[in-house]
């Protein structure tokens, strides 16, 4: 498709000039106070995070098990009191550790600092379900701290790499909109998780790849994997990209070896305490990849749950078959994009490849949680200036799909506020669209609006108590599927910038 045709279809329009974000930076430029722009952006992003942090966290005042917040707190407790060998074995029914070791080391660090401030917060066994304003503040502060040193600088560097040569406005607008992406804020600072560390290290990996520092990038990506195994959603795309680059670069074999050594060394260091015995390392894998839990849990907007509405997969097939089914489906879904990326590993293709690959995993993989949408959401958000319409739809649907979870945790008001704030500043409604696209968009948002209104005021029928959640799942899954197809189509239609790697080749000549 030629560029003009794409514009006709309204899918190649840049972010308009009359949006609040644009106007804000324009005012700063005109009055020569632009040096304050990145500072104000970061401060505002932090402000929104702290404001969302005022709200209750997952499992707030809900005994006996509480929620994700208690899980994180418990890991800080057990890592500081127990020897490493016991970390993956200690009383597993109370929030046993189920992330790879870097999370454990990170919990240990936070636990040490927290204990120094107030030992009661992390006293072994006695502090289960410990809840107080001060300990909450500390926990929230750890999330903000790590985000400030990993994720936020990564975003600023990313926008500098991608848009630095195109003037100040673009990169600042991109940074503002990426940092205010509502899904990450509401999950990390509302629900309470540390996704920003995994996403931040992945973003650093992307930054390194963009700067052709492949070994360093793979190091960061290993850190990301070592923090949360969900980063595997990106792994095939990253692998294909790196492999492709090995073929394209001069000294490809040396690079391949370097990469291999980096990966092995990084994982070696991360897993070193557990490598002394086979049972230890097996236990780690057993906890990190809990296959026995089944194809899906709860109601998530992925294909299996959606299909489950009609065809009860878990009853039709046994565990092994479902695992195989999921594996095959995932691989088939990601194969086109990943192979395409491998054959011509450019920067742009990497971004789209990450989207498509992680979406395949989300749609077809095993034990997917609704929060996992954050993984595709990262590369999608990074494309905000290239695909504003698609990004806005995707993130808004992502927020919508997480609503049932957020509602359970009394995060409804912040849900609306951060979503509205982001959409307002970006001014998505001003993107010029063709009639078809406009119709599609209107239908989509009307459905969401109607669902919200109905869900608030009309109780579901007795026979179908989960009606609203199921409708949400079906709708979101449909949108995700369309998004998956769309981003695949866009990847295959990318106009590659021929001069992209000439600088690099010049350097090596």
């Amino acid at each position, binding site marked *: 498709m030629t560029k003009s045709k794409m514009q006709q279809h309204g899918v190649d329009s840049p972010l308009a000039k009359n949006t609040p974000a644009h106007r804000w930076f324009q005012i700063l430029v005109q009055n*020569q106070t632009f040096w*304050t722009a990145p500072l104000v952006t970061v401060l505002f992003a932090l402000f929104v995070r702290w*404001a969302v942090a*005022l709200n209750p966290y997952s499992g707030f005042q809900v005994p006996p098990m509480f929620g994700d917040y208690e899980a994180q707190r418990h890991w800080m407790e057990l890592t500081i009191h127990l020897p490493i060998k016991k970390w993956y074995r200690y009383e597993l029914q109370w929030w046993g550790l189920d992330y790879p070791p870097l999370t454990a080391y990170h919990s240990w660090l936070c636990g040490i600092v927290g204990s120094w401030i107030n030992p009661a917060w992390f006293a072994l066994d006695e502090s289960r379900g410990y809840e107080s304003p001060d300990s909450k503040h500390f926990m929230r502060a750890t999330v*903000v701290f790590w985000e400030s040193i990993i994720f936020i600088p990564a975003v600023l560097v990313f926008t500098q790499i991608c848009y630095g040569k195109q003037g100040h406005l673009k990169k600042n607008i991109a940074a503002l909109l990426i940092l205010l992406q509502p899904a990450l804020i509401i999950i990390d600072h509302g629900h309470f998780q540390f996704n920003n560390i995994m996403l931040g290290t992945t973003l650093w990996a992307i930054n390194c790849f963009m700067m052709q520092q492949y070994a360093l990038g793979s190091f960061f990506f290993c850190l990301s994997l070592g923090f949360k195994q969900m980063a595997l959603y990106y792994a095939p795309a990253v692998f294909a990209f790196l492999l492709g680059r090995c073929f394209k670069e001069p000294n490809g074999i040396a690079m391949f070896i370097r990469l291999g050594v980096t990966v092995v060394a990084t994982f070696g260091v991360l897993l070193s305490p557990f490598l002394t015995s086979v049972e230890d390392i097996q236990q780690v894998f057993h906890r990190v990849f809990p296959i026995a839990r089944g194809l899906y849990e709860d109601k998530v907007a992925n294909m299996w749950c959606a299909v489950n509405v009609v065809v009860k997969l878990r009853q039709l097939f046994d565990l092994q078959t479902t695992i195989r089914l999921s594996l095959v489906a995932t691989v088939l879904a990601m194969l086109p994009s990943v192979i395409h990326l491998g054959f011509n590993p450019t920067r742009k293709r990497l971004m789209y490849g990450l989207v498509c690959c992680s979406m395949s995993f989300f749609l077809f993989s095993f034990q997917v949680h609704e929060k996992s949408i954050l993984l595709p959401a990262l590369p999608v958000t990074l494309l905000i200036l290239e695909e504003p319409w698609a990004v806005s739809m995707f993130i808004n649907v992502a927020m919508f799909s997480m609503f049932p979870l957020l509602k359970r945790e009394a995060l409804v008001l912040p849900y609306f506020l951060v979503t509205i704030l982001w959409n307002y500043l970006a001014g998505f409604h001003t993107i010029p669209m063709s009639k078809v696209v406009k119709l599609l968009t209107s239908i989509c948002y009307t459905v969401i609006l109607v669902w919200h209104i109905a869900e608030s005021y009309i109780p579901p029928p007795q026979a179908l108590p989960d009606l609203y959640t199921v409708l949400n799942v079906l709708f979101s899954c449909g949108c995700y599927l369309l998004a998956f197809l769309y981003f695949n189509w866009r990847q295959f239609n990318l106009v590659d910038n021929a001069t992209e790697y000439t600088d690099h080749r010049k350097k090596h000549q």
Partner: protein
Amino acid sequence: MLNVLVVSSIVKLLLVRAYRSTDFEVHRNWLAITYSLPISEWYYEKTSEWTLDYPPFFAWFERCLATFAPLADEKMLQVDNLNYASENTVLFQRLTVIVSELVLYWAILRYRRSFGSKYVHWVIAGSIFLHPGFLIYNGFLYGILLHSIVEMKKRRYLLSGFLFAALLNFKHIYLYMAPAYFVYLLKAYCFQPIPTPTENGHADRQAYANVSRFSLANFVKLGATVAAVFAISLGPFVYMGQIPQLLSRLFPFTRGLCHAYWAPNFWALYAGADRVLIIIGKRLGWSLNQDALGSMTRGFVGDTKFAVLPQVDAIHTLIITVIAQLIPLQLLWRKPTFNNFLTSLVLCGFASFLFGWHVHEKAILLILIPYSLMAANTKAHLRIFIILSASGIYSLFPLLFHSAETPIKTIFTLTWFLIVLPSLARTLHTPLRAVLHPLEYLYLVGLVVLQLYTDVLHTVIFGTGKLEFLPLMMISIYTALGVCYGWVRLMVGYLNGTI
């Protein structure tokens, strides 16, 4: 400007779950009283300790809001439902604040229309609407004040006087500024200059260089307008013979020169000096006032006694305040221009704040908000504004004392300064670093050090719960230095005509 409104509304809604001071229960109680009880009992009702102590217009305002309260939660309107704070109640009250601040929004729109539409006016308007002080206090009444000032600028003296009279009947704290209004309205409106053949411009100088003629008609008009406002407000209570009770509620004889948390005024410095002298006095064996030694360290609201320095009574503060107000007012009388009016307004507010009896730290906003309008007039004003805002806003920080709000108030204030100050400096074509004197920079750095100390180091050095008054006292005294310094510079500059 609309963007500012939308973003600020979202920001305020995000803070719905933030700390609620006792003010929340105060207003819930007033909603209940005005809704459930007849007027005759409004100023007598005392089930709750937070009795109605604002003038009648505010009570009527609460009554209006209470009409909508049943939509949220009826139970908040039961008078005996003390400390009731359901989710809906909280949301309702927060929404009333946001909606009532639309009055302020309207005021800043009109400000831009009458003062100018350049970038500097946009910055000042935004800086007022999103002032950190309004994280804690309601900006609605400052909206009315701003409307009144705008009318004054447009020379609609009668309307301005009317609005100010109404404002007084909402909250009598604005009496602090009444003398400035009185003097200016009297001179500028009731004394009409005799038209003289003007040679060229400089109309102002010509106007007051000549004799003005007292206009009885204007005086009567103004008097009647103000009287009418008070009549509407106080009339029903005069009829019911409740005025003494009303006055006793509005002007309670509160004990103590200083509030429990010392407002950063002159008396804070006085008390601080007294403490230092106690230490010296003990070393040198002076005979000290024994009562005073006991009362000071507890930090309660009570009669403040000084051990070394002379005692201060309410009458002393009144005299000093009046003198401090008369100084700028006499200049205003001689040269009644709008700028002088605005400066006198600020200086009157200053005088009451610095020397008044039992001053609450929220009164600093009475100085900061009007002064914002002048912040970018000259470099000298900007200098004062920076120091004043920094110390004034920081002095309000201890009011939000929970840890969850610390990052919020700090980030919000930092962002505010980062946006407002460079922009204002830019409009004066001065680089920001050239505005302040090095010592003033040092003062600002000191504020950061102070925050680090009170937030972190104090508990590290002394442990939790020990010497809790010390950080508060340090904040009071340090910010009092900044506020007093601002007052001195403004007063001197105003009197010398250099500002």
